[in-house]
Every structure is written in C-alpha cells, then in structure tokens.
C-alpha cells in the first residue's frame, strides 16, 4: 500500500514537472504584441562611468525570451550595429563576443551604452530605438559571449553563418577591461 502510494506520488510529481516544463517552454517563446512604447529612456549615466557594474533595479524583461532574442539578432544588423562591431568579432568598434567588457556586462550596462553612447565612437540612440528593442539588443549582445541560456539564444542565422550560432557559444566569464587610451577623456 505504502509502495503504491509512493509510486502514485512519483507519477504525479513527474506529471507536475512535465507541466512546469511545458509552461516554461511556453514562456520562452511568448511573443509580446504590445511592448512598451517609445518612452522616456531613464538611464542616465555620466560620460565617465568607468565600468563598475552597479546593481540597478531595472532588469532586462526579455532575457529569457527566445523570440525577443531572435528579434535582437535581426535588429543588430538592421540598425547597423554590424557597421562597427561586425558580427560580434569587432572591427572599428570593440568585439562583443569575447570576455572583455569595458563598460560592464550586465544587461543594464549594455542598455545604458546603447541609450547614452560611449566616448570615441559609440553613438547615442536615445529616442531613436524603442525601449523594448534596446532590451532585445542588449540580450542579444550578451548571447554573443554565451551569457544567455542556451535554449533561449538564437540557434541559426538567416544569412551565411559568420560564426557558430549563439546557442553553441560556451559561456565566457566577463572580465573588466581597461578603457582604451583613445577613449579616455582629456
């Protein structure tokens, strides 16, 4: 009797786990049709932000959403991030797929970098890119060095592969990198 009960509870536990997994996978692919509109982009940081990762109350709302990540991947080339950062390997802008971070690797640091711009070339996209798209881009940039869960990161490219898919990238431990001499304020 005891054994049978144990068996039953085991079955229901398994069923429960399957249900939880199913729900989790649903959320992973949720498509938000009514994202936050262009608003006041609040993050304000000094130009001299040295890159220490300050904890911020604002967290990336799309970091666990595969649809948002693949949108971010699309926007990364459509908004011409590739113009300077290439496909993440870096060109006249720094590489995004390595472990070195000049201005912090947390989502809100990347968000601030996009909104505020950074010295020596990174333009400010304040009021040019809507909030949720900046979060999508931040999440995608993090996926380039494997900071995003594998089942959420994009698995394929629409065009020829410039590098292995983000899903296959091993997670690199972020390291603080010095501000390049050229980017220092006089």
């Amino acid at each position, binding site marked *: 009797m005891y054994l049978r009960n144990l068996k039953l509870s085991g079955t229901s536990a398994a069923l429960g786990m399957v249900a939880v997994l199913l729900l989790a996978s649903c959320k992973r692919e949720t*498509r938000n*049709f*009514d*994202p936050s*509109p*262009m*608003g006041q982009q609040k993050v304000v940081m000094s130009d001299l932000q040295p890159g220490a990762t300050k904890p911020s109350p604002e967290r990336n709302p799309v970091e666990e959403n595969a649809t948002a990540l693949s949108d971010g991947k699309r926007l990364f080339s*459509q*908004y011409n991030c590739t113009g300077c950062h290439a496909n993440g390997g870096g060109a006249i802008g720094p590489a995004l797929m390595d472990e070195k971070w000049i201005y912090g690797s947390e989502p809100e640091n990347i968000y601030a970098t996009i909104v505020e711009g950074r010295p020596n070339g990174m333009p400010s996209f304040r*009021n*040019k*890119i*809507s909030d*949720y*798209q900046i979060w999508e881009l931040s999440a995608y940039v993090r996926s380039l060095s494997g900071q995003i869960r594998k089942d959420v990161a994009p698995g394929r490219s*629409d065009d020829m592969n410039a590098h292995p898919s983000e899903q296959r990238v091993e997670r690199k431990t972020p390291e603080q990198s010095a501000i390049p001499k050229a980017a220092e304020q006089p």
Partner: protein
Amino acid sequence: MIAKRQIAQVESFGRWYFRRARLRWLVLVAALLFLNGCGGFQSVLNPGGPQSEHISRLWWFMLFVSTAVFLLVMISLWLAVNSRTKPTNSSPEKETVGTKGRKGLIVILATGVTVAILFAFMVDSFLVGRGLTAELERKQGLNIEITGHQWWWEVRYQDVDASSIFTTANEIHIPVGVPVTFSLKASDVIHSFWVPNLHGKKDLIPGKISTIWLQADRPGVYRGQCAEYCGHQHAHMALWIFAEPLEQFDAWRRAQIQSAVSPASASEQKGQQVFLSSACVMCHAINGTPAGANFGPNLTHLATRKTIAAATLANDRSHLQQWVDDSQQVKPGNRMPANKLRPEDMQALLDYLQSLK
C-alpha cells in the same frame, strides 16, 4: 420514426420552396451576386492580361466539361434508379449473356471517355503552361524588382540609367500593353506574389531571384495578395497594381524619380525635424534628406499612395496618426514600434508626411 418525420419535413420544405416563386427569385439574385463577385478586382475570372486569359480559359473549359460529366452521371443514375422501380420479371439469374456483354461495353466506353477527357485536360493545361512560360522570353519592356518583407512589398523600378531607379512600396504602377518583368526576391521568409487578374502565383524565395512576366491589356486597378503563409500579418500583406495608359504612367514615373519636396510651412519643417530625430529615421528613407535606412518602406512620395500598411488602411491623416502612434493595434506583430510623440510633434510630423507628394 425520427427519420420519417425528417423526410416529411424535407418534403414539406420542398413543396413550399417550389410554391414560393419569390424565394426562387431571391436564389437567382444571390447567384447573380455570387457571379458578380467573380468579376472583381481580385479574381481569376476577370482576366486583365494575356496570361490570365489563358488561365481563365482553361478554368472555364474544365468547368464546362466537368459540369457536363456531372450532369451525364446524374442522368444515368436517375435512369438506373428509375428502371429499378419499374416492375419487371427479370432477376439477376435471368441475365443473359447478351445483356452482360452490353453492360461490359458501356463500362469500357465510359472508361475510355473518362481517359480521353482527362487526357484532353492534361494536354490543354500543358499548352497553357507552355504559353505562359514561352511569353516570359519576351524581355523587352519594364523591369520591376519586388522584395517580400514581413509584411509588405518593396518595389524597385530598375533602369539602365542609375539615376532613374527608384523605390516605392505596395503600390505598383504599370503601363497598359507593355510586358513587365518582375524579379521576385524575399528578405526573410517565403512569400508569394499573386495578382489573380493578371497571372498565377509565383513564390518569393530568400536567396533566389525568380521571374514572372505579366502584361495588363485593360487599364484598371488590380489587387494582389501574398499567397504563401508568411507569419502573423500574412493576411494584411496586399498590393495594388495600377495599369495606366503609357503617358500617365510616364508622368507618374517622372514624379517618383524626383527627390522629396522640401518642407514649405513651419509646421512641415518641424515635422521633418521630428522625423529625423526620432525612431522613424532608423528604418525609413526619404530621398533628399539624411534619412536613408532601407528596412521599412521608402516614404519619399508617401502622399501619392492610396493606402498604407501594405494596402491595409486608406492613406489619410487619421489612419496615418493611428499607424505612427501605435501600429501594433492595427497590425499586431508588425515590425514598426509604437511611437508616443507629443501631440504637437505628432501633428507636425503628419503635416510633413502628408506633404510628401
């Protein structure tokens, strides 16, 4: 018991139906309306060019033959059923060799006729297919490049003279009686170009250029639609083809080649500043201004278009405002983010957009 009652009901309905001439009249009107629906601006049965004439001729041929076959089958069925009801002395055992032979002959004959009809269908559809592709060889005339996007059509008029190339969206003007070559491409997923009044379907496949040739013989407006499921707003991915006399088309083309008009009033100038300093500039181009992104529709001559949002909304001020403000309410999932502008900025932007003749 129930079955009997149902039969009685059906019978009484039938009697009532045949008594009521008015109802028959109504049915006739409905049928006429239905046929009228076939003659519209998006219909295979209202051909506007040589290809669609081929296709609709084949369609009518198949319809007539199939109707004749259907009637023949129904008549023979009626005869067969009726002959059973007549009291006869013949029983299956009494069947003579002669009647058996006649039945066999009828079966063989019917099979032969069926094969012949299907063969005729095959030959005719083969000839129609040949006709459609053989005419594709005539490559003189206009060359238009169509790129399918989720969920709109980018239209680029090619020319040997690079300064005469221009880009527009969703509304295609073509001259009447001139063969037009469409080069079809896709930027994201497979779409399908289908203007039923002018031609059949042709898929737009990413990484591949496919070609379709068509010609409009009658001036008119023809509606086309994406015919391959391509995502959430597939149903709202339509296009219009305006077939115009050559002079009218040339005038339109000359106007489209021009850069955008510079803003005249103070409000339009402010609107241009709003356009250039907000999210618009990230995706849209207006020739003659710094806005040069090619991810959204080119807006250089937006005000000359009849519709916006891939022929989803009429191009008027209230729809434009609705679209710019929150297009996700109109076409959920489309690529344009909502833009909550200040009211005065929005009005200035609308003034500017409506000035883009």
